[in-house]
C-alpha cells in the first residue's frame, strides 16, 4: 500500500513532466570517485575476530560480472569476476588488540562468504565485558576502530509459528527473553539452519533496542529465515523455517555505535536513486573507511522446528 501511494505521486509528476518537461543525461562532477576501504569486522564472544576487507567503487562505474579473471586462491584455481576481484584487499595488515595483547589476523579462504577470503585471528577470543581495538594498515594508511562486547542476554523460550493454516506449513520462530533493567541494550539476531546455511544469516530486520521495554520480562520477538544468497531467489519458502529443520539461534548483545551502523544499513537497503526518498547514509565507526568493526556478546541455542509444537502456550525450553 505504501508503494501504491508513492507510485501515484510519481505518476502525477510524470504526467506533468510529460506535458512540458524534458530530461537529459548529466555528468555530476563528483563522478570522479576515489575508492574507500570497506571493513566488515566482527568479534563474537568465544570466537576469533574476522575481518573482510574490500574497496568501494564509484556509483557511476559500470558493474560487469561477466568478465572473469582466473586467480589462484590458496592453490585452488578460481574464476572470479574481474570487477569483484578488483575490489578485494588481499594485502593489508590487520591487528586486533586487547589489554596489551595483539593478534595479527591472517588471510584465509572461505568459499561460503563473499569475497571468498577473510582475515582471521588466532590468539584473542572475544570475551563479554571487554573492548577490542582494530588497526589496519593498507596502502600507507592506518585505520583504527574500537568496539566492545556487551554481556549476552539469554533467550527464555522459543516456539514455532506456521505461516499458513496447512499441514507442514513453513513458518517463523518466536521467542521470549527478559531485558536487563537499568542498562541500555541493543540486540542483533542470527540463525543457521543445518543442511541449509553454511554460515549464520540474519533476517532482514535483525536489530532492536530496549527503549520501549527496558527491564521488562517476557519480551516477545520473531525470527524469519535470513537472506542466504546461495538459495534460489524464487523459492517462496526462503524466508521461512520448515518443519523438521534444526536451527541454531544466536541472540547477540551489541553496543550503541554497532547498533547504529546496522540501523543505517537496514534503512539503506530500501533506497537508492529515488528523488523522493530521504537519503539513508550508513554510519560506521571507522574514520576514513566504510563499514564497521563490531563486537557481539553471544547467547546461542539450538531449536528443532516441530510443526506439532504450534501452541504458543506449550513453550519449548531452549
Amino acid at each position, binding site marked *: 500500500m505504501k508503494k501504491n501511494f508513492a507510485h501515484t505521486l510519481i505518476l502525477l509528476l510524470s504526467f506533468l513532466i510529460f506535458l512540458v518537461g524534458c530530461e537529459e543525461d548529466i555528468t555530476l562532477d563528483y563522478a570522479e570517485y576515489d575508492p574507500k576501504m570497506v571493513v566488515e569486522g566482527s568479534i563474537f564472544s568465544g570466537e576469533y575476530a574476522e575481518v573482510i576487507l574490500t*574497496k568501494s567503487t564509484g556509483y557511476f562505474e559500470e558493474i560487469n560480472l561477466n568478465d572473469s579473471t582466473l586467480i589462484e586462491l590458496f592453490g585452488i584455481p578460481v574464476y572470479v569476476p574481474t570487477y569483484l576481484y578488483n575490489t578485494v584487499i588481499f594485502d593489508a595488515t590487520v591487528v586486533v588488540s586487547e589489554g596489551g595483547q595483539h593478534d595479527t589476523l591472517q588471510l584465509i579462504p572461505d568459499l561460503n562468504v563473499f569475497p571468498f577470503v577473510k582475515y582471521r585471528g588466532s590468539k584473542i577470543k572475544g570475551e563479554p565485558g571487554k573492548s577490542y581495538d582494530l588497526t589496519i594498515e593498507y596502502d600507507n594508511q592506518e585505520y583504527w576502530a574500537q568496539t566492545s562486547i556487551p554481556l549476552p542476554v539469554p533467550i527464555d523460550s522459543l516456539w514455532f509459528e506456521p505461516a499458513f493454516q496447512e499441514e507442514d506449513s513453513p513458518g517463523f520462530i518466536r521467542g521470549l527473553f527478559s531485558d536487563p533493567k537499568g542498562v541500555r541494550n541493543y540486540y542483533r539476531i542470527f540463525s543457521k539452519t543445518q543442511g541449509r546455511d553454511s554460515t549464520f544469516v540474519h533476517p532482514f530486520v535483525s536489530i532492536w533496542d530496549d527503549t520501549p521495554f527496558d527491564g521488562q520480562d517476557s519480551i516477545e520477538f520473531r525470527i524469519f529465515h535470513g537472506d542466504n544468497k546461495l538459495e534460489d531467489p524464487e523459492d517462496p519458502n526462503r524466508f521461512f523455517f520448515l518443519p523438521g529443520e534444526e536451527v541454531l539461534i544466536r541472540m547477540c548483545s551489541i553496543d550503541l555505535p554497532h547498533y547504529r551502523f546496522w540501523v543505517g544499513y537496514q534503512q539503506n537497503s530500501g533506497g537508492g536513486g529515488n528523488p523522493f526518498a530521504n537519503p539513508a547514509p550508513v554510519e560506521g565507526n571507522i574514520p576514513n573507511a566504510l563499514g564497521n568493526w563490531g563486537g557481539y556478546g553471544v547467547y546461542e541455542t539450538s531449536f528443532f522446528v516441530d510443526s506439532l509444537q504450534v501452541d504458543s502456550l506449550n513453550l519449548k525450553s531452549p
Partner: protein
Amino acid sequence: MGLAMALALLFPATLLAQKFTLSGYVRDKQTGEELIGANIYFSELLKGTVSNTYGFYSISTEKGSYTLVISYLGYETYETRIELIKDIRLNIELQPSGLSTGEVTIQADRTDKNVKSTETGTILLPIKTIESLPVLFGEVDILKTIQLLPGVQSAGEGSAGFYVRGGGPDQNLILLDGATVYNASHLFGFFSVFNSDAIKDVKLIKGGMPAEYGGRLSSVLDISMKEGNMKEYKARGGISLIASRLTVEGPIKEDTSSFIISGRRTYVDLLIRPFVPDSSPFAGSGYYFYDLNAKVNYRISDRDRVFLSGYFGRDVFSFANAENGVAMNIPWGNTTASARWNHLFSDKLFMNTTAIYSDYQFSIDILQNDFNLKLFSGITNYTLKTDFSYFPGDNHKITFGANYTRHLFIPSSVSGQSEEVSIDVGDALLQFANDYSIYINDEFDLTPRLRINAGLRGTIFQQVGPFTRYVKNAEGVNTDTITWNAGDEVVRFQNLEPRLSMRYTLGKSNSLKASYTHNYQYIHLASVSTVLLPTDLWIPSSDVVFPQVGNQYSIGYFHNFFEDYLETSVELYYKTMENQIEYRPGSSFGLTVGDNADNNFVYGDGESYGMELFVRKNFGSITGFAGYTLSRTTRQFDDINLGNPYPARYDRRHDFSGTLTYEYDKWQFSAVFVYGTGSAFTPIVGRYFMDNGTIVTEYGDFNSFRMPHYHRMDVSITYLLMQKDERRSSLNLSVYNVYNRQNPYFIYYDFQGSILDGQFATMAKQVTIFPIMPSIAWNFSF
C-alpha cells in the same frame, strides 16, 4: 519594559498641550476601495501616519493650522489646509494617476515610507507592479513576484513555495483576508492560488514581525482582497493559454455596500481531451484547477462596517487506465471564509473582529476493479479574533488583541472497501488542538529621531483528546498505546514572544533600523521529498513534537536618493530556529495505519544569516527593482550527518533578481532576470558489497552537493489595444525562460541492466520542467 517606559514618557506630554485628532478613511476615488498603507502627514511638522489594513487613519497633534498631505503609490497626491481646532473626521478620496498615459506625475508617486517607518524587512508590493511583470502561461502570479525580493527564495523551478531568510516553507504565515492559507499553490506549486484580479494589496514581512502576527517563525504574507467597487459595475478578465479569468464587481447600494466575485479555471484537460480517444485506455485522465473568490461588504454607518469574504479552490487530477482497471481521482485544495466587523469606538480607537474558517484537504480515491481505497489528509481551523488600534496622539499607536483557534489535523487517514474487506483507520489519527494568543504592540517616538515599536505576544497551544499514541520499538512494532478521551489535555505549551523594532533617523532621506523578534510556531510541515508536494503533512506540536522556536536579529540602513526617486536599503540578519523536523533518514512517505504520523521524525536546529541589498525605482517611464542576497543557512540534527551541521536544502549563497519595466506610448516592455546558487542535495557517490554480497549505497555528506546554478530570463510585451475612459483591453506576449536554460528540477539515477544478468550501469539524469515557454494572453476591463 518598553511599554512601561513608553507610558511614562507619554503621559506628561499629553497633559501639557491640548490636542485634537484628525481621523478617517482613505479611499480610491473611482472605486471607493479603501487604500492600505497610504501616507498621511502634516508637512509643517513632518509628522504622519499610515492608513491601516481597512484604510483607517488617526493622527493627533496640538491645535493649529497645517498642510495635510496624503500620498499613495499610483495616486495623485492630495493636499489641503486643515484648521485643527477640534477633532475632525475626514474621509479622503485619492485620484489614481493616469495609467499608460506616457506621462507620470512625479509628485504623485514618491514615497519615503521605507525610510520613515520602523518596519524592517517589510515590503509592500502594489498589485500594479506584480501585474506588469512577465508571466508563465499568461497567469499573473503573486507568489512568483514575492520570490524576486531579496531574502526570499523560490522553492524550486516554477514553485510557488518560498523560503524566507533561511526558514522553511511552513514558516510563512500566508493570510488571505486574515484567513490562513495552508497550501498556497496549484499544480505542485507551478501556480499560486491567488487570482490577482481579486487582490488589492500584498505585504511581506520577513523580519521584525509585529506582535499582532504570530504562529510562524519566518514571515508574514498578508494579502487583502478587493472590497468591490462602491460606485459602479465593473468587469475585468483575461484569456490565456491555459486558463480564463473573470471578475465582476459593483455596488449593491452606492457608497454603502458592494460585492466582488472572481473566478478562474484552467482548461488543459479540455484541450487535451480531443487527443485522447475514448478507446484509449487512458480516457478519462486529466488535470484542472479552479478558484473562486467572493466578497461583500456593507457600511452600516461611518462607524460600523461588515465584510464577508471567501475563497474556494480545487486542483483535480484524474487518472484512468482501463487496461489494469484502475481509476483514480485526486482532488486537493483550500477553502477559507471570513466574516469581519470593523467598528470605530471613537476617532482614536478602531476595532476589527473576525471569525475565520480555513480548510485544506488532500485526498486520493483509487478504484481498482472492485476495491476502493481512499486516502485523506487535511487541516481545518476555526478562528475568532479581535484587534484594536488605539491612537493616543503624537505619532503614537497602540494595537492589542486576542485570538483563539481550534485546529483539527488529519495527518493521513485511510479507508478502503471491497466486497469482503472494509478498513477505516481514520478517527484514531486525528489531532485536535486549541491555540490561544493575546498581544500588545506599542509604536511611539522616543525622541524626534528615534521611533520604537515594542510588542509582546503571549501564546498557549494545547493538544487535546481524543487521541491515541502508538508507542513503537525499533522494529517498528507497536509496544504500547496510550489513549486520551475527548477534551483531555495531551500536552500544553505556553510562551511569551517579545518583539522590538526601532528606527533612528539620520537625515531627511536616510535612517537606521534594527529589530529583534522571538517567535513560537506550533505546527510543522513534514516534507519528505526535495520538491514540495500537496501530500506534505501538517503536523501539530504534540507530546513528541515540540514547538519551533525562532529568534531573529536584523539591522538595516535605508537611503532614498534623488528626492525619493530611488529607494535603496541594506539589511543584515541573523536567525536561529529550534525544534525543526525532518523525516528520519531513509524513510519514505507512506500511510500511517496504526501509527502516528509524528513517530517518523528527527529533530534539530537551524541557523541562517545574510545580507540583503535592495534598489527600487517606482516611477518614471522606467521602473523596476533589483535585489541581491548573500546568505548561509545550516541545520544541525543529531540523527543526520553524524550530528554535524550541514547546508539546508534551500541554502543559497547567492541570489539575485532584477525586474525592469519600460512604458512607451501604448507599449509596455518588461523583463525579469533571476540567478541563484543551485539547491543542495545529498549525492550518491559510491557503492560497496558487504553482508555476503548485499550492495550498499554510499552517500556523500548530507546536502554536500549542488545542483547546477539556476538562472533564467523572462520577457513580456503588452500592447494596449484600446483605451476609452475606463474600458481597456490589452494583449500580452510573455516568454518564460527566453534563452531556454535547462534548469534542474530534480536529479535522479537511472539504471540499465541487472545485477543478475551480470551487467549493470547507473547514470544521473536531470529533469527540467520548463524550457522556453511563450504564452499569450488577452486582458480586458470595462
